[in-house]
């Protein structure tokens, strides 16, 4: 059971968990984050690149986080400093990010959007699982017990109260955005250095949006968000396992039905009014 199902679920959930926690922190600070997809993409590319050039997956992993964070600086500048609409800017970041890996892969590897394979010696074994676990625990502690977490939450919940308590709302929002960039970048890192052994085109494949769905499903709280990610991870594994399997009738279950499950669940939950009442009150109002 563990080897055949639980472990694979945990493995495919790691990028979702990392990205979702990033998204959670950002949205908790009051900034809508639909750019996760882009951060994941650049993270996975630069993660692979750095691993290849240093032959050390840990360097690659860190590079992935930093790459996501650099892109999030651009997002933060446009949104916080130049007051762009957050949804428009997030969409732009996603488009922009799609152009980055091919651009550099052409220069560095003369390829139109993938990296050479990472040698086995430089691949991760289980480290990202543990790192993710540590980040989950840390997120939980910071969210509930630290001063930083409290203030960041207020920045999304009641910015006027935070400001009038003498704390800069803008700073908290910058921190939220940077955390989302870093964590989603790490999520990308797990894709290219842990779940597979190279970067391939459009590797993020919608995970940023699934992560966002998990944040909503998890009511913007760390543990429920992680659980939602595990649920989505399980559907991903189920989808692979059920390929060609006949469950009822004579035909196998179409994988597409399982693929759309996370999105479908999210809409149903949103329509059940859960999404609205639990979102940070000041989300997107800046």
């Amino acid at each position: 059971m563990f080897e055949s199902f639980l472990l694979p679920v945990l493995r495919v959930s790691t990028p979702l968990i990392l990205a979702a926690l990033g998204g959670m922190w950002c949205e908790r600070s009051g900034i809508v984050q639909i750019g996760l997809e882009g951060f994941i993409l650049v993270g996975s590319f630069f993660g692979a690149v750095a691993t290849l050039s240093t032959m050390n997956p840990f360097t690659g992993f860190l590079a992935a986080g930093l790459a996501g964070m650099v892109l999030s600086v651009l997002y933060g500048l446009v949104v916080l400093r130049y007051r762009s609409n957050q949804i428009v800017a997030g969409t732009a970041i996603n488009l922009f990010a799609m152009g980055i890996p091919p651009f550099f892969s052409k220069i560095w590897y003369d390829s139109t959007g993938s990296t050479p394979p990472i040698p086995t010696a430089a691949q991760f074994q289980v480290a990202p699982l543990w790192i993710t676990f540590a980040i989950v625990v840390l997120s939980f502690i910071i969210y509930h017990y630290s001063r930083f977490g409290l203030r960041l939450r207020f920045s999304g919940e009641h910015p006027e109260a935070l400001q009038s308590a003498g704390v800069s709302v803008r700073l908290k929002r910058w921190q939220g955005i940077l955390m989302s960039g870093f964590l989603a970048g790490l999520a990308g890192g797990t894709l290219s250095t842990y779940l597979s052994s190279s970067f391939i085109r459009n590797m993020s494949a919608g995970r940023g949006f699934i992560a966002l769905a998990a944040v909503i499903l998890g009511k913007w709280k760390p543990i429920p968000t992680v659980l939602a990610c595990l649920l989505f991870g399980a559907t991903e594994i189920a989808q692979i396992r059920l390929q060609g399997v006949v469950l009822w009738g004579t035909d196998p279950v179409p994988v597409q039905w399982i693929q759309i499950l996370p999105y479908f669940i999210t809409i149903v939950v949103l329509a059940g009014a859960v999404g609205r009442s639990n979102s940070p009150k000041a989300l997107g109002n800046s």
Partner: protein
Amino acid sequence: MNPSSPIAIEFKDVSKVFGNFYANRKINFSIAKGSIHGLIGENGAGKSTAMKVLFGIQPKDEGEILVNGNLVKIKNPIHAMTLGIGMVHQHFMLADSETVLDNIILGREPKNFFGMIQREKAKKELVQICESYGLQFSRWDTKVQDLSVGEQQRAEIIKLLYQKSEVLILDEPTAVLTPQEVKELFVNLRKLKAEGKTIVLISHKLKEVLEFTDSVTVMRRGEVVGTKVTSETNEDELAEMMVGRKVTFTYQGPRKILSNQGAQPKPVLKFNSNKVKLELRPGEILGVAGVQGNGQTELLKVLSNPSTYGEKYFKEKYDYTVNGKEIGDATPFDLRKMGVGLVPEDRLSEALLKQQDMTENFLLGQHHDERYVSHGILGKMINRTKVRTEVEKNIRDFDIRPPYTTVWAGKMSGGNQQKLVMARLLDPKPSILFIAHPTRGVDVGAIEKIHESIMQERNLGKSVILFSSELDELIDLSDRIVVFFDGKIHGEFSRKEFDPWAIGKVMGGA
């Protein structure tokens, strides 16, 4: 006031101007340390502005403010807090989904070496604060949304004490409380006072001010009318100061005698619920007075848009007829067809499209009017040339400025916006008019023009329900006034009984 007691706060010739409107004009008063000081006046009298200036939310334009005898320039709320000034806003500064404890300690959280909040330590401190001021509170770990409004307010007060505020400003603290909660609040405020805190109570309820304060400053139309020692004044005197005897902008034009006065005319509008019974007679202006939040807003919404607000505000059955016809849950369009017109309470949020020009705003609500609509292959189309001609005519009639149809509503002055709203109201020639706060935030010239056109409609035999927080205005224009208190009609005055003091008392619940 005891002259020997030290002064906590002093206002010296402080003015605050918005555009060319004085929200505060050279106000002077001082607040003694360790006292409960009332600041009273009608809506828009400038009380809140004065306190916002003191709390650093808005910068003053002229004058000086002294805190504990020192001249200070209060830059922002945080600065005010370091000076020991704290404020409980009408809308609480509490995040609903967080615990009371977290809300209170925000910004001053005790933390350990790792940045973790020491909640137990904070709680101990709060318990101690409550003990020393005799406040009852123990629901620290409850989320704010699960507290009653009274408890939330107490949490806000504890927050100020935790922040070591010496002067506590409370903006209309009783507006949202039940009578029991009000009683508790004042018991607590007295305890705070006994511990040496200074309390400023912003209110427009005479009774509570008389009962609970040591001294009181009365404001009216942005100016301080006077400061009294509470024990040496009485309700009549304060009412007179608050409302003022002299009506500044009296309507001078003709007032047609109602032909059917004395006889029992058939009402043109009837509204009957178990709380509110209202009849509008033909050709009269019925004034609706009352302190904000006593049920007038709900009545206006239901009268003007029963389809949206009927169930929301009047859960029990109500009976609503216009010209003898049952209204049920009609839409504003249905009402419009029956000759009912509306000027909503809040011009900017309810009546105008700020980023659209006069033509578009004139169309709002009239965009189905057969005069302005033609039918084409693409459906109902608007004939803007016709609308524009009509707007131009109204610009002349109402003297709207700037006199261009292409001006954005948001760029016009309050008075001109209101003239536009009035012009739109009268365009379909309604016979029943609901007009709310027609002169709020409006300059003198426009007030006259607006009053004139309301009277003109009345003299033409139209019936008007006039909602206003300006008692002067109601007394000046109305034929009859009903006073709301606590969701009900608490008193009724016919024109010959009009008396600002008497009406003011009923507004306060007497």
